[in-house]
């Protein structure tokens, strides 16, 4: 059942992504992208990441994409026939992307068992087991402290440094956006 739902959303996500990259109108492309993001949010739920699913909808589909749409509207970008590259460029793009896909296709075959096998082959069974235990621990944590609580604790303890860095990142983004946007030519 889970996998059936997964595949339904997967197909929607892929189809929406395809539409996004071939749609000539920027607004339509953006809407298709939002569609993909929603599908992904659904898949996150299937994968047990409820909180992530929520912020996917809030931050990505909500905030970020709105910003995109806002800019598209601001620039009054219409339906432009030239938005896609020429046929040869598209062909080249498809070819290289095809080759890229060929390299990546092997990822489909991954199962937790295979990961466990490879990990123990590389780092020895002890280390592998320790690494794989982490997933279980997280589930227990989540069960014990709630969806947000399971994430919050590590965020302010083990991941404190990156978390602080994100603040700097946002500061940079603010300053940068302001600097770029506030000036008139």
């Amino acid at each position, binding site marked *: 059942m889970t996998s059936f739902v997964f595949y339904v959303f997967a197909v929607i996500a892929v189809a929406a992504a395809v539409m996004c990259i071939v749609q000539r109108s920027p607004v339509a492309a953006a809407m298709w992208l939002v569609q993909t993001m929603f599908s992904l949010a659904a898949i996150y739920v299937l994968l047990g990441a409820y909180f992530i699913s929520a912020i996917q909808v809030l931050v990505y589909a909500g905030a970020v994409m709105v910003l995109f749409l806002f800019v598209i509207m601001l620039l009054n970008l219409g339906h432009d026939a030239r938005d896609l590259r020429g046929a040869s460029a598209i062909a080249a793009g498809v070819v290289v992307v095809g080759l890229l896909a060929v*390299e*990546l296709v*092997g*990822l489909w075959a*991954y199962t937790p068992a295979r*990961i466990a096998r*490879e*990990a123990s*082959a*590389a*780092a*020895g069974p002890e*280390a592998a087991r320790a*690494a*794989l235990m*982490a997933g279980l621990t997280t589930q227990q944590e989540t069960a014990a402290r709630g969806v947000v609580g399971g994430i919050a604790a590590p965020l302010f303890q*083990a*991941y*404190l*440094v*990156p978390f602080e*860095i*994100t603040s*700097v*990142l946002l*500061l*940079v*983004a603010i*300053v*940068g956006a*302001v*600097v*770029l946007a506030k*000036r008139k*030519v």
Partner: protein
Amino acid sequence: MSPFDLMSPMGATMALLPELVLTGWSLLVLLVVAWRHETEQDSHLAGWLSFLGVLLAGATLGMLWLGGAAPLGPTHMIALDAYRFGAAALILLSTAATILLSLRYLDRQRLLAPEYYVLILLAAVGMMLLAGAADMIVLFLGLEVMSISVYVLAGFDRFRRSSAEAALKYFLIGAFASAFLLYGIALIFGATGQTNFTLIGQHLGSARLSLMAGLGLAFILIGLGFKVSAVPFHMWAPDVYDGAPTPVTGFMATGVKVAAFSALVRVLLEAFPAAAYLWQPVIAFLAIATIVVGNVVALTQQSLKRMLAYSSIAHAGYTLVAVWAGTTLGAGAVLFYLVTYTVTTLASFGILASTEHVGSRTILVDDLEGLFTVRPGAALAMAICLLSLLGFPGTFGFIGKWYLISAAVAQGQYILPVVLVLGSLVSAGYYLPVIMAMTMKASRTQDAHRQVTFSVAARATVAVAVAIILVFGVWPTGPLAVALDSAKSLGAATSGRR
């Protein structure tokens, strides 16, 4: 200094003191800027204040470095070793020089937005984090902090279309590359369950890499290869370097590269030491392609700035030769070469920045004709810089190249050194015409170069750089020792290899 427990907030704070000081200082500057952002004086105030901040950060860095700061237990998120300090010091040097060189440049180009300096400082924070990252997360975030700042800096010249174009190109392709890097991090995480370099290294062990780990390694190489502008991921570099304001170009060519190379070396040596058999061929080909393309295309450039852009690509190729070695010696060579390269490149971009004036078209090589007669000091300094870039004995650059070649040769590698020197040969073909134009040709117009003026700060910066080039070119013992000691601190992963 007792070791820091990086897991504790206190320890992490101490370990990140330079970055924190710089961040805090940038907030302070931002505050000042909020009130004072109109005149040249305001701009200068922000600049000097930022310079002070860099000095402060440098002081704390020195404190950590000289105090022998070391982590208690395994590293966590941020490295605490001499290699990080060395790279950070170099980044601060580059930052300080960029600030000094920008002071008058911004006036001349009427870019009176003091936020410039805030962005410079924040970019430096990002660079330092990137260079010092011991964890993929910090690596990625540091890279983004740096990149986003630099995107903005590249587009900072609002009067020029080319500046905006440079920013757009840099941003789009940079984000594109970041996605690859991120995907690589994801796959490595998938293969090991870790993001810490050392732990990744331990988990990967010395077995053959699994599919996922291999893909991860490849994508990480690509992501970092983009940042060091290795061919074929370099295409953005000439355009962006060309379009960005000249001091920013200097900053990009030095600070960004220092950070990216340090990160690359650290990732390869700490996370993938046993996979050298996989990444060495890639690095080797990247090095060859970078050296060849950088040099050969530089040969045909008319614009001085663009020529220097290609030349900086070529230098990335040289540096990759030592990265290839994957040894302590190689790491030391990378760091050392980055020092020589940074000093020289900053000085040359500084001189270039001083020869530009508002509204002028791109500076062509021919525009320097007769510079020696009018501004002998500038011409001489430029000539020395170019010779150092060429790797001429008696200059810092020569010692650096010597070190690079040694690192490769020590591993029994001869092809890369040969490509390196052949690349240097080609580079003579574009460095020399500049020297020739400055010293051997007569200026075309009576009052050529009269507008070329150097602020005291720029003059001092260039003079110091040239002095470093010459003094360390003859007596490099100090920096050599520092570079080698720093490389040794890269640690356990490199054991067993000279």
